[in-house]
């Protein structure tokens, strides 16, 4: 595969937290416009691998490249500035602020303008326009003045996704984007992810998920992990048909 389109490449990642390695030599890559899901049972190492990509954990071995640059030792902050936006398994936002204010913070943090003492945010032209447009597009306009801590679970995740998308990332890292959601919210989130991809054809997405329906409906490729290693990688149909998947998920997937 040509290097041109590769947005994220993790090679030979090994990571242990004192005990036996949580990830032992995992590799995968994501090209522009592609959505890759990392799946696997609990303890398979998918969260650790995700954390290594996001800059939360530093790997013991292996390298992470983002758009051709080695970012293995970069902080989460530096990665975010370079165009990697993420969400958390437990939605993370500024609870004592309104939805709109959260988006203003996200906009402010984008692109490293944080040492500007004199530009007034919120009322400033581009910031205000971007924030209002994002509120509209993500279906949060009616909740704009609600304190984030008062949001329902699905709206919290939506706010987090809106904050990430407001930063116009090259790579979107979604940690369990549908965890703890109702069936209705899961459906809305899947629709939203599809629409985001439609509107941003160059955007690369990496997500971890438990819900196989979500994984198979949004992914271009699936990476199946087990015991810290990549067991199978391929299209959703290929991974679904693989014997390893049957083995790992026997009795847990009913499709």
């Amino acid at each position, binding site marked *: 595969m040509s290097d041109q389109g590769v947005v994220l490449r993790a090679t030979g990642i090994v990571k242990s937290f004192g005990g036996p390695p949580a990830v032992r030599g995992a590799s995968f890559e994501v090209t522009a416009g592609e959505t890759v899901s990392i799946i696997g049972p609990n303890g398979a190492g998918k969260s650790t691998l995700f954390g290594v990509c*996001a800059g939360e954990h530093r790997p013991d071995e292996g390298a992470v490249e983002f758009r051709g640059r080695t970012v293995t030792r970069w*902080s*989460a*902050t530096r990665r*975010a*500035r370079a165009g990697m*936006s*993420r969400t*958390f398994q437990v939605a*993370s*936002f*500024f*609870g*004592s*602020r*309104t939805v*709109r*204010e959260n988006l*203003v*913070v*996200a906009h*402010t*943090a*984008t*692109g*490293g*303008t*944080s*040492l*500007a*003492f*004199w*530009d*007034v*945010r*919120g*009322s400033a032209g581009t910031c*205000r326009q971007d*924030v209002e447009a994002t509120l509209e597009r993500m279906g949060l306009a009616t909740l704009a*003045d*609600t*304190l984030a801590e*008062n949001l329902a679970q699905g709206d919290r995740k939506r706010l987090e996704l809106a*904050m990430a998308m407001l*930063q116009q990332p090259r790579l979107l890292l979604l940690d369990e984007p549908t965890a703890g959601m109702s069936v209705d919210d899961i459906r809305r989130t899947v629709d939203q992810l599809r629409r985001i991809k439609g509107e941003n054809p160059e955007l690369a997405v990496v997500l971890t998920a438990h819900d196989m329906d979500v994984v198979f409906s949004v992914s271009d490729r699936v990476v199946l992990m087990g015991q810290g290693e990549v067991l199978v990688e391929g299209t959703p149909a290929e991974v679904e048909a693989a014997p390893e998947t049957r083995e790992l998920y026997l009795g847990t997937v009913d499709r």
Partner: protein
Amino acid sequence: MSPVIAPTRPAAATGPGGSTGSRLVGRVPPSVRTLLVWLVVGVAGYAALGGSTLFLATTAVIYALFALGTSIQLGWTGMVSFGQAAYFGAGAYTVALLAPAGLPPLLALVAGAGVAALLGLLFSVAATRVTGVEFTMLTLVFGQILFLLLYRVPAFGGENGLPGIPRGTIFGQSLFSDGAFWVYTVAIVAIVSVGIRRARHSSWGVGLTAVRDDPRRAAALGLDVRMMRITATGVAALLGGLAGALFVQLQGIASPEVMSWVVSGEVVIMCLIGGVATFWGPAVGAVLFTVVSWSLMDTSATPELYFGLGLLIVVLLLPEGLAGAATKARDVLAGRRRGTS
């Protein structure tokens, strides 16, 4: 978390949530409003006060500047410091040590603020490796080390301090009279306040409050959390140094007490009483603190006792301080509760 800074308030006021009660006020930009408040304070003080009360009012305004600066670190960024007197003292002693050179008063202020800012930056580059209580302990140690240096280094004049600092002349006008020095002080504090007010809604100000509310989230959004903490400390130090420099010009003497931990504690109390995360709170707290301390001075009562009790009441009943309580009262009166839809 209770302190709420609304970075989008100006924008929100024009939207559907805009209040009717403050519509007229809402049209005037915050920086102009800030300037107007100081103009009124300046004129009223000049007209109504004189002698010792004007001297007291000048002291109060200088402390207001000190508290406003401190609140950037304490309230906006959530870094608790018990070493702010180090910056106040650094500004004070810089002016005192430069007095023989006969610098113009404004230049002396710039020097005092600059030395304090440098000190703040150096300290925070080292100290922001840790956070929370550990950081607070370092501020205390840092403040005490500088305080002790005042007694150890002969150039600082030991217990007696450095007396005989002239107020100087600005634009051909002597600052010797208390009236002239009042105008000079209020003008400087007014201009600096506009800057602080503006910075509060800037990218930097919004970033600081994000770091305070959730450092991990702020970092994941691309904010350099440590850089934000360092710059917050630097700016707080700069303003503390400016206040200390003004204080010495007012008093005519730099004495070691300006650097003691008591002063560090007092400025924190001023911020908390007034409302540390609000804009005007720290200034209001500083004025109240100064005036009440002064009025208790002649009695046998110990002001510390009253402030201890007052602080307890504020912390327990008004977690956002007097200014926060006032805002809430105004919102309730206007029949509007922001954010609770």
